[in-house]
């Protein structure tokens, strides 16, 4: 094996561009390993671990571009490096082709767009915090997509935001919908009268998509980032967000979405609802005790789907009874479908493998399945005793969150790049104990643009592999998204159905169906 590389001083590219280029280079014939990264200390240490840290990289700084290729011979290395350079040039010139003015700094951007009111920041952590504070000091609202920002900085930014009436979404906020515009990884949903505050990205996406698919709509969806509702930050933006929705005349109903907040934060939220909020509130605190919110006068939901359905029912003037009837009818359909699917399995098939790209969706699926089939294994299980010894090897009932750092270092998020999950699907199908494979597909801006095209052949291939051995594997999929999304929910649904998958209207329904099938087969704890 030969390792070759180049270093380009002062050539900056964002991490997603670099990862996409690296993925294309890795796919070249004869290339064993490849990295296209900025020369940060962390990246250099990853290269060292992979055995591709060349001597010339050792003194590289953050603003240097490093390209390293490990391949069978020098010619393949040279060709791969050349390919990486071409891909980077083509991506850069695509931006410049349009000939539009791109200021070099936030100050320049404000001069050019003086009425700007929102700044989206997706830089590496230490740079992101500096730019966020600069933006706030200029009176601009901030969405901080970046995740590696310290808790102290988060508190500082949010305190400043609170004192100056500015929104600070994030850090680690992947999604929001402001004035009808989907920011970062958001879905295109109907506009309407339901306002959402969420400390969970995919949770916000699932609830807003359910609302829209039910024919209701969203006024504003404020993502706070998951740490906002923990003890240290104390729910600063979660609370400011609720207050802002109460003041907003377009918002008639409020939905709150989160994993369990710190008890102190939940108490603050409950007290706010009780004393200051006049609008109806529905809350989903996944895995948390709903009592405290209920006592404050809000309606607790059991699943993300329920939160969306209840809010949509309010908005459409339907009664809670109608909503309950809808849920009961769905439950019956799921049980019938599970009965049918469990009949075509062999004696060895009894377990489910959930391969999730959305962390909150994976959590919700585990919470639901726990009540039907008991605890499941995973890389981030609900019960620590069920943590997989090796995250790459499933056993019995397993739900894996492929968006966890252990799977994503050096590669794009699995919502964008399906390579890893596709590989896992083909591995799982060889396990004779597997009866059901459960998948989430998250649509919207920022996600994979052709999910149906990429998943359809893999599902077909997996089904064929099993069928050759006389087994039938059930694929259950949930699609978080709408027909207005650039991928089109209806189109993706059709493509997955064509491959033989069962498509459910929500993650809650998908995880219930998968669990009911397994329960019928005896794969329970």
């Amino acid at each position, binding site marked *: 094996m030969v390792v070759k590389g180049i270093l380009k001083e002062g050539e900056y590219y964002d991490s997603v561009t670099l990862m996409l280029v690296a993925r294309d280079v890795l796919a070249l014939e004869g290339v064993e390993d490849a990295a296209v990264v900025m020369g940060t200390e962390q990246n250099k240490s990853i290269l060292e671990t992979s055995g591709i840290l060349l001597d010339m990289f050792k003194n590289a700084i953050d603003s240097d571009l490093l390209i390293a290729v490990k391949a069978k011979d020098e010619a393949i290395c040279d060709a791969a490096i050349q390919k990486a350079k071409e891909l980077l040039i083509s991506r850069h010139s695509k931006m410049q082709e349009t000939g539009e003015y791109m200021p070099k700094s936030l100050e320049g*951007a404000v001069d050019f767009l003086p009425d700007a009111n929102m*700044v989206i920041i997706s830089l590496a952590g230490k740079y992101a915090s500096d730019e966020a504070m600069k933006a706030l000091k200029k009176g601009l609202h901030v969405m901080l*997509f970046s995740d590696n920002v310290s808790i102290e900085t988060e508190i500082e930014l949010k305190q400043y935001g609170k004192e100056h009436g500015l929104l600070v979404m994030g850090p680690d906020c992947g999604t929001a919908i402001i004035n009808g515009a989907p920011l970062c990884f958001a879905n295109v949903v109907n506009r309407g009268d339901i306002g959402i505050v969420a400390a969970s990205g995919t949770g916000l996406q699932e609830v807003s998509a359910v609302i829209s698919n039910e024919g209701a709509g969203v006024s504003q969806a404020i993502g706070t980032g998951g740490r906002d509702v923990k003890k240290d930050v104390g729910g600063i933006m979660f609370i400011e967000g609720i207050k802002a929705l109460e003041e907003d005349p377009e918002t008639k109903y409020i939905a709150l979405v989160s994993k369990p907040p710190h008890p102190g934060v939940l108490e603050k939220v409950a007290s706010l609802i009780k004393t200051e909020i006049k609008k109806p509130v529905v809350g989903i605190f996944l895995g948390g005790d709903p009592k405290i919110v209920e006592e404050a006068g809000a309606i607790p939901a059991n699943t993300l789907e329920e939160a969306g359905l209840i809010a949509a029912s309010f908005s459409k003037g339907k009664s809670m009874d109608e909503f309950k009837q809808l849920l009961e009818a769905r439950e019956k359909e799921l049980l019938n479908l599970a009965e049918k699917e469990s009949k075509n399995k062999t004696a060895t098939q009894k377990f489910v493998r959930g391969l999730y790209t959305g962390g909150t969706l994976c959590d919700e699926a585990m919470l639901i399945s726990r009540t039907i089939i008991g605890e499941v294994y995973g890389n981030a299980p609900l019960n620590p005793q069920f943590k997989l010894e090796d995250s790459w090897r499933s056993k019995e009932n397993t739900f894996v969150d492929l968006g966890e750092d252990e799977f994503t270092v050096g590669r794009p998020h699995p919502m964008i790049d399906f390579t890893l999950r596709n590989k896992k699907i083909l591995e799982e199908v060889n396990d004779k104990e597997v009866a059901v494979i459960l998948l989430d597909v998250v649509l919207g*801006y920022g996600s994979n643009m052709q999910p149906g095209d990429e998943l359809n052949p893999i599902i077909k291939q997996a089904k064929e592999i099993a069928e050759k051995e006389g087994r039938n594997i059930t694929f259950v999929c949930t699609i978080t998204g709408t027909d207005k999304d650039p991928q089109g929910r209806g189109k993706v649904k059709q493509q997955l159905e064509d491959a033989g998958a069962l498509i459910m209207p929500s993650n809650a329904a998908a995880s219930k169906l998968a669990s009911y099938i397994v329960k019928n087969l005896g794969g329970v704890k």
Partner: protein
Amino acid sequence: MRKISDLFKQELQVINIGLVSFKESLEDVGVKVIQVDWRPSAATDDETKDALQKLLGSK
């Protein structure tokens, strides 16, 4: 003091620093957005920043 709810009454106009795809998706739905051609300056590199501060006597 400003209020977050005032933002909801204004036309959203965005400055995007980082991933270009976020700018493109906003343009797709008709939002006015400008991309900053951001790159780390010498002054934001920690070692250089320290050296500069020492040189200028502020550290």
